[in-house]
């Protein structure tokens, strides 16, 4: 007696029947069906993206694609909840399977990770296509070629004189010359009719790193030279992942301008047209600096003449698509992980508690947030006060949760406490770390040597990983047992 499930091939059908008859915990999570349907969806989506994202230079509307995919994933999530997640070993008072709590959580995590992961597919395919169409070296080579050719073709328009500024080194900059909002922006500060600009050692270090040439007149007097701008096309990070680097204005000056020889223009113009065809985009965004060039400087004229603004946009688009994942500081993974974890925790709680207690738990969290905000406003709490209040909530709820061990009757307050404690436990170490550094920051005001900008990242990363591990360790022996005890308790 075989049952028919639409859109499910024979081998999945067989697997489904085998799991149903042998592994009820695994079967009830329906991971095999989610993997199957998610794979089909991801494959079709990838195919659609592959044939849609044919032009790497064009403007990326990946956010729209991601939003569209997220919507479909959410519909899939709802379908999974309503039509597939119907069988619950826990609520049927089934046998006590070994590690079933951990296993169930893991299976839910896999299912939801596929749904969340699908939203990254368009971006991944876009990057794949961009990398396939343009190699890393090719872009840098073309940027350099564009700049060199422009210089060769428009030599007569180019300014050749380097800008020189004389700086006097002082022990300390007068405080009135340092804007409070952005101290680093003060590289030049000239008082009155002085012939010099002033700088301190910090500013000097920065200027030395960025100067095209420097002449030291005395121990405290320096002339900094700046080469005129010859890089009409440039892209930040385009050469970050290749040994070939973008030529600077100084490089172009020494290579092409200092000993300039007249060139055969036509091949260069042809090549410029080829590159325009290759990179220029029809729809582009002029940056503010170009539109502000009312005086039609050489820079603007050259860019306009060879469509370099449009080309630059195209190159920017390509570079952004190519290096999207490399430039990441981990936010994509965090977005993926925490979204998955968030929904997994909600589903896990929903499957281990009564519907009433689940929704009351959500309500309780909202009420606690409102209370916290009210406390914050009324008592003028700073971050440390709010952190302390939230830690207090957690401790109180954890104590209520532990009282389930001795409970004789199913109590909704204990159920709510258990749900909230379970939900926030993975974030507890992260929360404590943030709290610790906040207290250090507050207390360091009296200690000028303590830097608030010390590298806290490893601590936070450790707390993130540690929190998840702590949760997994506690899940089976603590949370699952408490749920088992609480859910089976008699009512009234």
């Amino acid at each position, binding site marked *: 007696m075989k*049952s028919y499930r639409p859109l499910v091939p024979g081998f999945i059908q067989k697997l489904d029947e085998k799991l149903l*008859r042998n592994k009820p915990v695994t079967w009830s999570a329906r991971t095999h069906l989610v993997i199957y349907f998610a794979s089909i969806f991801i494959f079709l989506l990838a195919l659609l993206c592959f044939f849609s994202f044919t032009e790497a230079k064009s403007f990326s509307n990946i956010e729209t694609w991601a939003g569209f995919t997220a919507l479909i994933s959410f519909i899939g999530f709802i379908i999974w909840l309503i039509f597939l997640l119907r*069988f619950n070993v826990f609520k*049927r008072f089934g046998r006590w399977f070994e590690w079933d709590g951990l296993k169930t959580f893991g299976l839910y995590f896999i299912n939801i990770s596929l749904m969340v992961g699908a939203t990254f597919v368009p971006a991944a395919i876009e990057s794949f296509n961009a990398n396939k169409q343009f190699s890393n070296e090719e872009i840098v080579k073309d940027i350099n070629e564009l700049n060199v050719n422009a210089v060769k073709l428009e030599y007569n328009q180019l300014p050749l004189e380097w800008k020189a500024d004389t700086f006097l080194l002082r022990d300390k900059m007068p405080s009135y010359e340092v804007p409070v909002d952005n101290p680093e922006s003060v590289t030049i500060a000239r008082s009155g009719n002085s012939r010099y600009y002033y700088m301190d050692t910090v500013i000097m270090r920065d200027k030395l790193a960025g100067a095209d040439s420097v002449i030291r007149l005395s121990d405290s007097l320096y002339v900094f030279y700046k080469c005129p701008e010859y890089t009409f096309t440039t892209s930040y990070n385009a050469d970050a992942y290749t040994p070939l680097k973008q030529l600077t204005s100084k490089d172009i000056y020494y290579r092409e301008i200092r000993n300039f020889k007249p060139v055969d223009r036509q091949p260069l113009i042809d090549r410029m047209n080829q590159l325009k065809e290759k990179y220029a985009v029809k729809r582009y965004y002029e940056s503010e600096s170009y539109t502000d060039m009312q005086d039609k400087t050489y820079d603007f004229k050259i860019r306009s003449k060879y469509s370099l603004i449009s080309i630059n946009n195209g190159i920017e688009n390509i570079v952004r698509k190519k290096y999207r994942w490399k430039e990441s500081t981990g936010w994509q993974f965090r977005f993926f992980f925490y979204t998955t974890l968030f929904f997994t925790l909600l589903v896990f709680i929903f499957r281990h508690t009564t519907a009433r207690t689940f929704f009351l738990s959500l309500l309780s969290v909202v009420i606690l947030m409102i209370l916290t905000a009210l406390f914050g406003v009324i008592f003028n709490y700073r971050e440390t006060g709010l952190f302390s209040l939230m830690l207090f909530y957690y401790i109180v709820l954890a104590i209520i949760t532990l009282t389930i061990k001795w409970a004789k009757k199913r109590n909704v307050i204990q159920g709510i406490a258990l749900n909230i404690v379970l939900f926030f436990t993975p974030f507890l170490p992260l929360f404590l770390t943030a709290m610790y550094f906040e207290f250090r920051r507050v207390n360091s005001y009296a200690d000028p040597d303590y830097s608030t900008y010390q590298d806290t990242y490893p601590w936070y990363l450790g707390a993130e990983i540690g929190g998840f591990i702590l949760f997994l360790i506690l899940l089976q022996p603590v949370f699952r047992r408490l749920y*088992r005890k609480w859910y*089976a308790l*008699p*009512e009234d």
Partner: protein
Amino acid sequence: MVKVIYSVNFLTGKLITFAHMYNDPVQEIKSYLKHNDYSLAVRRTLDISLDSGDNNLIKKAIDWSREFRVIESVTPTMVPAAFISKGEALLAEASVINAGTPVNTRLVTADKISQKYSKGNFSLKPISLSLQTGEVLGVVGENGNGKTTLLRCLAGQLELDEGSIHYHLLSTPDHYTVKNHIAFIPQRIPKWYGMLKDNLHFSASLAGVYAKENDLMVAFMLERLNLTQYANLTWDQISSGYRTRFEIARILLQKPRLLILDEPLANLDINAQQTILTDLIYMAKGSHNPMGILLSSQQLHEVEKVADTVIFIKQGNCLYSSNDKEVAKSSAVEFETPEERQTILDLFEVGEVEIQYNGGFYTIISFQLTAQEVIEKIITSGLQVSYFRDITNSTKRFF
């Protein structure tokens, strides 16, 4: 030798009206076949095949049952000889397998349990009872008098105010284990989702019945409760009566030791009520998974026919338990006739009987005559009687 063992009958203190049970079930089934009781024969054959523990025999019994369903649907009055001979061959095979005799084990003892809801005034007064495998305990009483409360207390769903419940097969049970050990079927069965068949496979898996055995047990239960043709349907596609049957099938697959049913007959037609009750009793007394059954119902006669013990609850108090062995001080006969009360009274001497009328039935109560004598007088008088029943030892008297 066919030895007729009548099941427990507490009603009259005599013998039963419930289905005849034989010492030798093979002989019992043969007699059913002989008297054209094919449906019962098929069901009982399924029972003995299950008790045998022989998977081949179970498969053959399932096939034979399926064959019967086809015959029943095509030519219900003409059963082919081949079908009967196949059944006899099956019985011959079953007769050489020793199924073993189920040992009665004490399951639960409730000692003066009482419960009061935190909201409302109703309270269940102290009640004691005990149940062992193979036994049926019926709880009767009017609506809102505490039947469901008692059942829910025993199922571990309500906290006791006083008293204690001891589950003899569980050494140190927590509430989850108790709920795993007991199956409770409420009056309003919670909706199932998905295909009915999947739910049955799932329940069998939960009970540790895996792989081919899982398939076999589900097929068996579908056949045993005549549900095969509905297996691929969903909850919304079957009637409430079949929902009850499916719930019973699902619960039985989980192999509970104590089965608690709250008003299981409420959604069943009169034939189905009888069938379900006898099926449950047969399965409870079988050696495959002997269990105790605790059920509540408004269908007094049906419950009293099958129950080993009946308790009557009114306003939370246990007014009567058939275990108390109290002999009724008066006889009582219930009957239906279109005649006037005076005509009936004229049949008896003055003061010999008292007649009550509830609008449908007359109830004659007598301290001087036995029920048999009352019935004899009514029948021999030539009165037009369409129904009569001796309710001397029935809880019907309390209604």
